[in-house]
């Protein structure tokens, strides 16, 4: 499988490490214990989608420029639909 790193270009998947589902957003966690929703944390830490089809995942180009990426990939065909730098993909994303 090839992943088109936005910085380095197409590289084989061995140069990358996968973290998994890029869907869950880190919940708000105020400094004190008020407002921290345990259910949201369980979702964030443990619950992962595992669809057959298009899936957004975190990958790191660890054998290259070391950038974290959000890779949109079809789990059935391995077709990589799009790749973005995680910094851009997650910038301005509201915590849930």
């Amino acid at each position: 499988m090839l992943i088109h790193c936005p910085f380095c270009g197409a590289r084989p998947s061995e140069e990358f490490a996968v973290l998994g589902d890029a869907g869950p957003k880190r919940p708000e966690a105020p400094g004190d214990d008020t407002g921290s929703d345990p259910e949201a944390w369980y979702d964030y830490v443990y619950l992962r989608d595992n669809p057959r089809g298009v899936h957004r995942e975190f990958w790191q180009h660890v054998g290259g420029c070391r950038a974290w990426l959000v890779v949109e990939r079809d789990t059935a065909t391995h077709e990589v639909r799009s790749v973005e730098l995680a910094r851009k993909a997650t910038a301005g994303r509201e915590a849930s």
Partner: protein
Amino acid sequence: MSGYRLDSGGRIDRSRRLDFTFDGEAFGGHPGDTLASALTANGVRLLGRSFKYHRPRGLLTDGPAEPNALVELRGGARLEPNSRATTVELYDGLEAWSQNAWPSRNFDVGAVNQLLSPFLPAGFYYKTFMWPAAFWERVYEPLIRRAAGLGRGTHAPDPDSYEKGNLHCDLLVVGAGPSGLIAALAAARAGLRVILADDQPEPGGQLLSRATPLGEEGPLTWRDRVLAELETAPNVRLLSRTTVFGWYDGNLFGALERVADHLPVPPEHLPRLIYWRIQAKRALLCAGAEERPLVFGGNDRPGVLLASAGQTLVNRYGVAPGRKVAVFTNGDSGYQVARDLQAAGVPLACVIDARAEGPADHGLDCRVRQQTVVADAKGGRSLKAIEIVDRGQGRRIPLECDTLLMSGGWNPILHLTCHRGTKPVWDEEIAAFLPADVGTGLRVAGAAAGHMTTAACFQSALAAVTEICEDLGRKAPEVALPACPEEPCAVAPLWWVKEAKGKAFVDFQNDVTTKDIPLAVAEGYSSVELMKRYTTLGMATDQGKLSNVNGLAILAEVTGRPIPQVGTTTYRPAYTPVPLGALAGPHVGAEYRPVRRSPLHRWMLRQGAEMIEAGAWMRPSHYPRGEEDWFAAMCREVRGVRSRVGLCDVSTLGKIDIQGADAAEFLNRVYCNGWKTLPVGKARYGLMLREDGFVMDDGTTSRLGEQHYLMTTTTANAGPVMAHLEFCLQSLWPDLDVQVASVTDQWGQVALAGPQARKVLQRILDDLDVSNDAFPFLAAAETTVLGGLPARLFRISFSGELAYEIAVPADYSEELADALLRYGADFGILPYGGEALSTLRIEKGHPAGGELDGRTTAQDLGLGKMLSGKKDYIGRAMSRREAFEAPDRPVLVGLKPLSRGAKLRAGAHLLTPGETPAVESDQGFVASVAYSPILESWIGLAFLKRGRERLGEEITIYDPLREGLYRGQICDPVFVDPDHERLHA
């Protein structure tokens, strides 16, 4: 004797003789021969025994699909079983042995299976070797393997080297036959970067096997002209002896180049095989087509072979397949083979055509029979006669011949197009499967696309290159085509000669006959995938290249379904077998994986260190003196540190440079403890959690400047922690102004520990005051040592002694270590290794690998107070889970055996005395142990339920694997200097 060498013709060099042996018997051949052609030229016909019935078998094909002529090649450590004699290039001194025959291929005891064959139908093994289950591994499998195995492997280490490599191109052309050559030529002229890969020693494909001229010239004259242009084109790479075996995601192709298999032994500097990964913008499959056998009685007799194989023997190798040759065909292509044999002077017996009508002007001198089929082939180890059935007259006629060439139609070699899940499409006209449209990445041309004449092959190849040029924004060039011969290619399917009396083989390699398929259907295995598994049709080294289409056509007939509805089994890489050595490539032995070395690696070796692997790193275990074993050396080193001073390489600890306006905020978020108050020039112990609340890593972080920190990690977690920090910065908090960089390798770092550490240190410092007041515990400074060497100094301690860590840029590491040894000599300084380090930290109750195993919490480690309640950090929410605070979670305690000499073992479980060992009564486990030369006893760190309330309690240590039950006492995890006075001295 049947086959023989012709006086002229072929691509062999008759002026040179190559000597070789087969089953120990000596023969001669010529350069250009394969083992198969040389054996045939020597009249050797019986090449081995079949898999199940041990029937005599001979040559069937001229290429990689060969199911019968499998031999063990070479010997000793280079023994290569299941080598196809049809693809083994002859070299001087070649040694080969037949397989699956004992004591010899001429007299094989296993041939009794032929008599037993009524009792050995498909599924025999499944039905017979079922019970008792305990027999599967111990009795049945060895028995079956001995009786029905193919070649033997070797247990000796492989003496050859293997390589992996990467290639890139605009266009990969698979197959250098007429289609591939013209495609490569056109693409080269269009300026594309072209790779032309072909599995043969020389390009040409079918042109090598045929005599028919192209235009005014011989087929090879035309080939030579094309080749000359390709060979000089800078944008073309020709890969001979290279099989493209798989098509993968991203238009990657796997290819195996046999660099040295045509040589007796690979030259010392060359790999035997190269596994190429080819990244192709576009690919064109020009792999040609595979001729199908016909299915009739005794169609496996030595002397019955494919018509194309006979044609190749004559035209390419100058070998007559026999002295009286009959041809059995269901299409026009059999006639051309007969004409080629006639032209070469090979005596023909008859051409037998199953169709009512063949080509009118066949140009053959022998008799041609229409509407006639071969029902049975006779003879034991070599064909003697055939029985034909004239279907028009309903007569059975015996016919003498020593060789029968069969042509059952052509299957496009479309395997690559199916490797990513697409199924081929049935075509009535050529009675074969055609490749489906699999997108622009991989196109198909020539016979592989079902074009059965040279003219059509050329045109399809050029048309494909035109499309490819368009895709890639190039202009397709004009390429002049040679005039092609008339090539009638009609074919009428003939799946199964029902007049057969003897065994009619569908799959030669697996001994699957026409009887096995109806049997599979009768027993319920009528889907093609189940039929395959039940009968084994299409398995083993040839993967059904010859048998699959016949097999499923018969299945279609038996089940009354059309062929497209039966479908095919799944095609998977690799097209031909790929040796495991090639898949491993160079990554064996010393190159198994790269090794990471400390800048003090060679210095440590000079000090006599015994090195051990620690992840990728090499680290010193101990520094033995004289005859010391590790234990004695460790005890001496520990005593040396506790009583005097020692130095230890800590360069392998992860070091991460952290800068930026938000660096302190960042540390606050990735560590569970607080960082906002750490002043410049101070270090602090930090504990890092995972988001699920468990401990991830620990280490000290020092503040070097207002916006500059240096984090250290454990050796093992340096990589994961770095990736984690990068993830946090790039994905969680992209707005933080923080820059992280690994400086692990930049600094050579030495721990100097022991009561005399300060005195030694003072001798190397240029001007820093390290008195206890000026440089207290957890002080950090950037300074210089040894006359201007930049250095970083940290007063931190893993051993619990007065200790410092000194870091210098790595190129100066040896100078630093030498100086410490020199200046410390009169204090009795000594280097200590990982064993002593481990004992020192266990004596102090410092958690490390055994305690930070990913299942422990800060609370478990007695570090719950570090969990800040004033900020958010990774792991905060989950570390407050109820279970984490549960009072009976196992927590860190110290452990001593009750009897002084008793040895503790990590991994042992803890039980309340008197309890029966069981999961319910489990109280905890031992995480790390050491022999403490200070306490003169084994000590351990353990996790025990309610451990902190149980100090002084007796406990049962249960270690069923090693020492059974013995008794210990729970204590504080800090065994030495519990008030930490030495640390602050």
